[in-house]
């Protein structure tokens, strides 16, 4: 590499500042995951509804969200929603709403495939024994489906850690945003962004590996 004088001390000097951003990143991801799990449930219920209009709404949300860029969605939530509803929303709130909506559209599919992973015969056995459809869903399908959906939900958390960096664009003070601010004052983008990439990597990579191991164990069941 060309002669470059690394100045890692500029990063260490702001270690607490960046770690505060990391904390923010993780909190945003966790809150968003919970909201996205609820949102995913609502979308899944809409998709399976008996009423055509509700089904149409559920499917439309999914299609729109999956076929537009997440950054555009965030900008839309941040700049357009306030105009539509006439209220100012915090960048942080906009980020969480936008990300949650985005992930919810995927999580609704996770739920669906979790439920479909339970063999029909398990429900038929319950039906023949006299369990009601509700009991059968509650006692036979749901517990098995939940087990299948946990690893994909954990994967969603990993994705959220990465996607939450988009908050930087609307100045949410998570770790990427703080990196941008730091490099604007220390003029050391190389050290700063390398450090940040390494932080993301060492959080996401072990999680991703653990999830893969977990999924393989479930499949071997």
């Amino acid at each position: 590499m060309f002669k470059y004088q690394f100045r890692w001390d500029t990063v260490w000097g702001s270690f607490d500042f960046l770690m505060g951003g990391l904390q923010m990143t993780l909190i945003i991801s966790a809150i968003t995951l919970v909201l996205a799990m609820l949102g995913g449930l609502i979308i899944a219920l809409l998709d399976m509804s008996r009423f055509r209009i509700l089904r149409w709404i559920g499917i439309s949300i999914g299609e729109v969200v999956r076929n537009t860029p997440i950054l555009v969605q965030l900008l839309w939530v941040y700049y357009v929603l306030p105009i539509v509803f006439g209220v100012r929303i915090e960048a942080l709130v906009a980020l969480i709403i936008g990300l949650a909506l985005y992930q919810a559209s995927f999580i609704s599919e996770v739920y669906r495939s979790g439920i479909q992973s339970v063999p029909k015969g398990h429900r038929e056995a319950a039906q023949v024994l006299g369990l009601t459809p509700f009991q059968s869903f509650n006692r036979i399908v749901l517990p098995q489906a939940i087990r299948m959906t946990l690893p994909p939900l954990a994967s969603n958390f990993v994705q959220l850690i990465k996607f939450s960096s988009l908050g930087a664009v609307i100045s949410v003070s998570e770790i990427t945003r703080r990196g941008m601010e730091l490099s604007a004052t220390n003029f050391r983008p190389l050290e700063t962004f390398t450090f940040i990439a390494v932080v993301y990597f060492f959080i996401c990579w072990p999680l991703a590996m653990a999830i893969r191991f977990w999924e393989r164990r479930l499949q071997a069941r």
Partner: protein
Amino acid sequence: MSISSPLILADGVSKKFGANQVLTRVTLEVLERDVVCVVGPSGSGKTTLLRCLALLEEPSEGRVVMEGVPISTPSPSKQVKAAARDVRSEIGMVFQHFNLWPHMSVLQNLIEAPMRVKKMPRDQAVAIAEGLLNKVDLSDKRDAYPARLSGGQQQRVAIARALAMNPKVLLFDEATSALDPELRREVLAVMRQLAREGMTMLVVTHEMGFARHVGTRTVFMDRGEIVEAAPGSAFFDAPQTERARRFLQQFEDE
């Protein structure tokens, strides 16, 4: 309800899947303590008939009648639906692929329906379950999960689970077909024991030995119809139709 009415009756049952006519006016009655064996080539509609009797499929024509009361008809009335709910758990079914619930232990599999459907107190359900596990010789597997059991053990648990609801009739759909030959024997032994105790059974099977020696009546199905029905081993000793003779030929070297 008259004394003479069969325990369960398929009364002119037809079933179509789209344009595919799978059953054509099948009439079959099962009397108390009968062990009716249903044999026939693959695709002849045996499973579909059983599923109609187990109320898993609705007939396209005809009806299913239990002790004189219709419990399944095409587009059933409220009355028929209510009758079906009442007798639902009196018709037990054992599936080819066991269909045990993998997230529950053997004991939990056995007590689930008695507790939820019959609202039986747990102690009582457990006592019954333990008795049944003893009967199918699996007392030591009480707390095991299905995945840890052999196929033969799983099927015996499935039989015990069906018995836990104290059904009036048990339907078996090729209960041994998914098993290795050595494991079949232990399941067949349980079925033979049940027959000896007077359990009413409708058994779809490829085990001609079981049909001949344990069955009180053998029904031969082909292409969605009952072609022949004969008591005990008569079907095997003197098949009346060419189709039945051809079917039986495959088993001659057994």
